[in-house]
């Protein structure tokens, strides 16, 4: 019997997924500016909805602040409430 015939029941993961991090904590950003639309666009999807924490990697403290900033930007018509093909 050849040695390379070993089979596994479940496939072995070759690469570990990259660990997500909170960019606010890493870069020391203390204030989320609602006027900086280009920055806020990193946290919303094409339809203008907020990305969940599981995708953005934000800590809860800063996810709340981002949410507040996005909502303020929407009120002042800097960001749309609903849209398609934002990016």
């Amino acid at each position, binding site marked *: 019997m050849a040695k390379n015939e070993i089979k596994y029941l479940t496939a072995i993961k070759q690469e570990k997924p990259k660990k997500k991090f909170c960019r606010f904590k890493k*870069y020391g*950003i*203390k204030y989320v500016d*609602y006027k900086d639309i280009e920055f806020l666009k990193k946290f919303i999807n094409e339809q203008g909805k907020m990305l969940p924490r599981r995708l953005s990697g934000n800590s809860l403290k800063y996810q709340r602040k981002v949410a507040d900033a996005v909502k303020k930007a929407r009120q*002042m*018509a800097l*960001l749309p409430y609903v849209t398609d093909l934002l990016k």
Partner: protein
Amino acid sequence: MSTGKNQLFNQKIQVMNNYELMVIFTPVLSEDDFKSAQKKYQDFIKENGGDTVASNPWGLKSLAYPIDKKTTGIYWVLEFTGPATINEKLKVQFLRDEQIMRHMITKLDKYAVEYNHIKRNGGFPVHKAQEA
């Protein structure tokens, strides 16, 4: 005990807070009208015990969605300090003003004040933090 609390309360009223105001004027406004409106509200803040920190007229900008059937607006951002009582007075003025389509007053915490200060002086706090 109650008098002590009262004193504390009276002191708190005197505390000056940092605020940021954003106003969207109607796009039919002329340049001179825009400037006089800015002056009017800065004077109004001064009369009510506040002071302007920085004024930043963005000018004509397209809106993300139509407001009052208009697709553009003239933006004005003002950073000011003042007692907490100033906001209600300002709000009344804004709602009476027909030139104003929308307004928002945000309270700034200490990090926001720092951020605005650095941004005004040409630096970006994000990059500074990355270097450190």
